Structure formats: C-alpha cells, structure tokens
C-alpha cells in the first residue's frame, strides 16, 4: 500500500531534467569558502589562521557546543582569509577561505576506522561527530545530536528519508541508484549506534528504479524495509514522513524521538558510510544543478565551499538571462543575490530559473477559498495567520499555532490571491519567538 499524509500539493516535478544523469565528479575548485555554521546550532570556531597550509579532510573549525558539528577543509592549499563572508543562508558568516594548491592532498588523520562490528555505539557517534556530518536534506541538524537519545526516550524506529519531494532535485535519487549499499551501510551504523532494531526507507512512488535498487541491497535483511510513499510535496518533511510511515504524530513543539523515531536523510547515511569506511569527513556532496536557466543540468559531486558560479559554469553556464538562482528546490530553496557564495553541506540542489520563468505577483485580498487550509500538511489556517501578521496580532498567531509551521510553502503555492502566506507566517514566528525571549 502506498502511504502518505493529509494535505500537501502536487507541483510539477521537473525531475526529468536530471534524473537519468549519472553523478559526475566536479572539477577541483580553485578556491573554497568554508562557513563555520552550515548547521543548526552554534557555529564553529576557526582553528586555522591566514597563511596556514591545510590538507583535504583537515579540520578547520572546531565545534565547542553540543549542538554543533566541526567543519573540514575540502581541498588542500593555503588559508587566505578567516573572516565573515557572505553565505547562502543570507548575511555574513565567519568563514575560512582556502586557495587550492591543485594537489588535493589527503590529510594524514584521514584513516578508515575499525570495522563496524568492533565499534561501540559511542565510538560510532563520536566518529560521526568528528566527521562533521549533518543532515544533508537541507536544514542541517548535526547527525550525532540526533542519534544521542536520552535514556528515557524509547526510540524503536529509524526512518531513512529518501522521499526527495522537492521538485527538480534528483541528488538522492541518483545516490539510491548508484550507491545503494552505502546508504544501507550508513543506516546499519545508525541502527547500531542507537540500538534500534527496525528501520524503514521511505521512497516516493515516482522513483521505482530507486526502490528496486534498494530492495536488491536489503534482500534478506529483515530489519530494513522499503516504504513506498505517494508522490506528494512535502512527503519528505520529517513530520509528514513519520506520519506516513508509522502513523505517529510528533507532538507540537516536540522532536521525532518523542514518538520513538529518528529520521535521517539518505545522503546523510551515505556520508556516514563514507566516514566509517574511509575516515573521510563530510567535505563533498551530491548536488543537482538544474532549471530552465542552466545549459546542461547535471548531478554533480561537489566539494563543500565551491562558489555557486563555478558549479553553474561546469554545467555549461546560464541559458538565457537568469532570473533567480536558488540554493535548494523551488519550494523551500533560498534565492541568492550573489553567486560567489559557497555551496554548503545542505546544498542539495542549485536551481536556476530563467528570467521569463520567474513570476512576481501583486497580492490581492483573500477570498477565503480555503485552498491553503486544504494544502497545509500541519492543518494550520494559513489565511488566518497571515491576517494576524498583517495586524501585528502575535498572541492570536501563537494561539493558532504559528510556531508549528514547517514553512513548506504549500499555502503560498496554492493561493489564488498570491498572498505570500508562508512569508507572513515566518514573520509571525520570529515575532513570537522574540516576545517569548523577552518575557523570560
């Protein structure tokens, strides 16, 4: 049976542009910019100075806080700057800029770990932390934190998020086709690290080849199962995935582990496999470069820190005049104003929309058609929340659960009045959080 959740939308997927293109290794960048905070949590502190020589895989930023992840050099070369730089998340972020020496020398510390059978759960978690692995789906939550389950939480299920519901993006799809055993290896490491006996891999039914590919690898493994999911956005949203696979609902304001579930992205599993097998920290990832404004859409294996423009140029450069360049997919991606910002750990895709494909709308009054209500996967009333934002009624917005919004963008997508509902709710959320801080 195909499983899914309530609400959601069916945007045009446009995955045909890249879904049959094998992953290609990107050329070595001349210069990389490594932001210190590519994850949720405290940014790292740089541990190299201008002029230092670093090698591929060498740690350049140390994570001091618990919710954090170290960062590593993705090329060998010389540190030319340690300063705040623009990054795709907007604004400036302390970054280490490395000029590649072209040699791509491996750091001496990068050595394979003991075989997984000999590792204790804590050792696995520590390796994951040291490898700087964060969720590769987009948000970038440090993976080791996710796996550190307090004893009172009874986690019984691991879910691998391979839904990849964002239109255009095919990075995970290619990964499942080309390196399924890595995904399963990583998953088994997670299961061992957490002591969980049951896991599911959720894949949307528009990727039958990926389902086959995984099924081949897990044949005979009783504790791992593929769950076929309906093709619907945001099927890959953590809460939606949990609901579809297990039928459980993460309580408002809670975490997946509150209902005994840990969710990890397929890319994250592969990164864990890579770290355990080779000792290589997270310094490269698969990203889908696509859209109407790119000459040759591709799935590229890129080094973290590569400027976006370099990546786009490897795909033949722009086709026509670019209107928008997004880091991520069209639903939740961030529009970039400058193209020398680096690709980061969460860059699942780079989407270039041709100018004529970018439509800007004047919002008109809400006609209460309730399309946003039907589309909202959280069952919120986006139109009410937007009205509260317009009048600055933050308390009402909080009562109507603004903080539960996952910012998936479904409401804005369907709104016939072109009201930027998602944006209004974001504004409400930030005000509510600010007020909460003040009242503390």
């Amino acid at each position, binding site marked *: 049976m195909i499983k899914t959740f309530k609400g959601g939308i069916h945007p045009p997927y446009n995955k045909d542009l890249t879904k049959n293109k094998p992953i290609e290794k990107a050329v070595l960048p001349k210069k990389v910019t490594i932001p210190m905070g590519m994850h949720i949590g405290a940014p790292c502190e740089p541990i190299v100075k201008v002029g230092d020589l670093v090698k591929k895989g060498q740690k350049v930023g140390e994570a001091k806080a618990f919710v954090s992840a170290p960062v590593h050099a993705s090329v060998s070369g010389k540190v030319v700057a340690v300063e705040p730089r623009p990054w795709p998340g907007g604004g400036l972020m302390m970054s280490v800029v490395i000029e590649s020496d072209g040699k791509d020398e491996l750091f001496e510390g990068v050595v394979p770990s003991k075989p997984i059978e000999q590792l204790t759960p804590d050792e696995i978690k520590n390796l994951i932390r040291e490898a700087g692995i964060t969720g590769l789906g987009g948000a970038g939550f440090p993976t080791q934190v996710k796996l550190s389950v307090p004893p009172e939480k009874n986690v019984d299920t691991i879910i691998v998020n391979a839904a990849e519901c964002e239109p255009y993006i095919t990075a995970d799809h290619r990964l499942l086709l080309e390196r399924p055993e890595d995904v399963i290896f990583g998953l088994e490491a997670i299961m061992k690290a957490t002591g969980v006996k049951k896991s599911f891999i959720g894949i949307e039914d528009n990727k039958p080849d990926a389902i086959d590919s995984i099924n081949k690898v897990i044949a005979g493994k009783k504790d791992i199962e593929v769950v076929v999911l309906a093709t619907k956005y945001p099927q890959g949203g953590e809460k939606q995935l949990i609901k579809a696979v297990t039928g459980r609902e993460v309580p408002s304001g809670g975490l997946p582990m509150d209902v005994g579930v840990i969710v990890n992205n397929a890319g994250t599993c592969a990164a864990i496999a890579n770290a355990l097998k080779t000792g290589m920290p997270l310094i490269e990832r698969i990203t889908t470069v696509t859209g109407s404004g790119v000459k040759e859409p591709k799935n590229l294996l890129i080094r973290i820190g590569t400027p976006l423009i370099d990546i786009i140029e490897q795909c033949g450069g722009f086709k026509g005049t670019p209107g928008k360049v997004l880091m991520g997919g069209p639903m939740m991606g961030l529009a970039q104003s400058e193209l020398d910002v680096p690709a980061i750990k969460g860059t699942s895709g780079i989407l270039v929309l041709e100018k004529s494909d970018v439509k800007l709308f004047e919002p008109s009054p809400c006609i209460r*058609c309730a399309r946003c209500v039907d589309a909202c996967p959280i069952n919120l009333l986006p139109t009410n929340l937007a009205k509260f934002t317009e009048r600055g009624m933050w308390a009402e917005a909080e009562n109507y659960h603004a903080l539960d919004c996952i910012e998936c*963008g*479904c409401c804005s997508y369907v709104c016939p009045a072109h009201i930027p509902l998602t944006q209004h709710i974001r504004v409400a959320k930030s005000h509510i959080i600010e007020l909460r801080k003040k009242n503390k």
Partner: protein
Amino acid sequence: MDDYRLITTSSPHIHSGESVSRIMFNVAIALLLPTFAGIYYFGFRALALVIITSLSAILTEAVFQKLRNKPITIMDGSALVTGMLLALNLPPGLPYWMAVVGAVAAIALGKQIYGGLGSNPFNPALIGRVFLMISFTTPMTTWINPVDGTTGATPLSLMKMQGITTDYAKLFFGNVGGSLGETCALLIIIGGMYLIFKGYVDWKIPASYLGTVAILSVILGQDPIFHLLSGGLMLGAFFMATDMVTTPLSGPGKLIFGIGAGLLTVIIRFYGGYPEGVSFSILLMNAFTPLINRFTVPKIYGEVKAK
C-alpha cells in the same frame, strides 16, 4: 562574468498558477449553463435581465472604488459573478429598474461597504435578492410560465398552497415557473459538477446541503425528489452556498454549513411563511460562518503537549 541582477524573494518560488480572476471566470462559465436555460425558456427578457444586472453590478463596484480612491478591480470577475447570480435568482418578468436596484444593493450593501471582495460576511447576490424580495414582494413573486408566457405559480407554491405536485421531468428540464436560472436542474447540476471537477467548489457543501434536505423530506413524509428539484435549491446548493468568501474554511465547518442550510430550508419550506427558503437559509448560515470557523479550527498535526 556578466553582472546579473538576480531576483530574491522568499520561498516558495513556484506557484500553482491559480488566480482569483480565473476562479471567477470559471464560475461565470459554469453559470452560463443555467443562464442559457433561462433564455431558452423565458426568452429575451431573461437575457436582458442578465446583462442589466451584470452591468449594474460591475458599474456599482467601479463607482464605489472610484469614490474611495481605491484601485478598480472589476476585471477580477467577482462583480460579474454577483450580477449573473442575482439575475438567475429573479423572476423573468421583473421590471428592469428593480433589477438595477437589486444589483446596486448587492454590490453596495452586500460587498463594498465591507471593503470589497473577501471581506463581505454575506453572499452579495443573495443580499440583492432578499432586498428586492422584501421591498417589492409582488413583482418578486409573480412568475411566468415558460410554455405560454402567462403568469402562474412555482411548483413549490403550488405544492404549499394547493397541494399540487409537478412531474419530475418538467422539474428536471426546467419547464416550470420560477426564477430565470433556477428551473433547469439538469444544467445547474452539469455546471456545478464542472466546478467541483475543476476544484473550484468543494463537494462537501452541496452534498451535505442536498442530502439534509432529502433526508428531512423523507422523515417528514414529503417527496424528497420533488423538494430537491424544485425552487432554488439546486442553484443555491451548487452556486450560492459554495461562495468561498462567505462559507467556512475547514471541511467539518463546510459540512456544518451545508447541514444547517438544509435544515433551515426545510423548516422555512415546510413550516414558514415563504414557499421557498434557500436564500434566507444560505444567508443565515453565512451569518453563522464566523462562529463556525471559530469552533471548527482544525486540529493541527501533533496537537498535544510535548512530553
């Protein structure tokens, strides 16, 4: 490298392509079906009434917005829909000037004083209709027989006052006295289905509305098919009770709306002073809509306290 000026707006970056005017024009297209039926049965006057109310509605909207120095939004098609709906709810023999009064009342009192599209608590076309109904009762209840053009009664008042029934085929094809767009159940259903199919109308309201009327008719010992097919019920259930602006947001809210409207329609038809109760029922449920919305806020995903 060329210096591109990139557009940066917040996500999402794609849109379904749906727009208010597209919705309105689709409703207008669906409304053309009952309009054709009206013109077929009642001739030139029907056409003239539709044109007059539509133009008056659009003009009133434009004048109002001009006076308030607001952008004129008559091209969104909502005034057109209001005008057409009003005409479909009028007796074909109504004097033209009264139709103009109705259209002005509909747009001015029903919509613009509340700030225009999206803010009106009541369905504007129905406000126009009951305004006329109360103001000019006699012309508003003088019906023309489609066959010979003589005046006569509607099937519902024949039933209520004299206990005379009308056969189903006549009701279904619309060969009876009544408002110019409400008689032909067949074309109304086709138009309504078109809107449901295109996703412009939620099936919940027509289904619960018609279902409630049918079930209550059976319980109260009357002919459910007769009551479904006669009067403005079909037109109301498919085109007026489904007006997005004035109906509840959530699914359960829509069901409550439909059931409430059905209940009120039956009460007025069976026990009230008016032979027909569709307009009043829908308007009363419009009035209840804010309260329904308040008490049917959907339970959100994971609505429990975090442990």
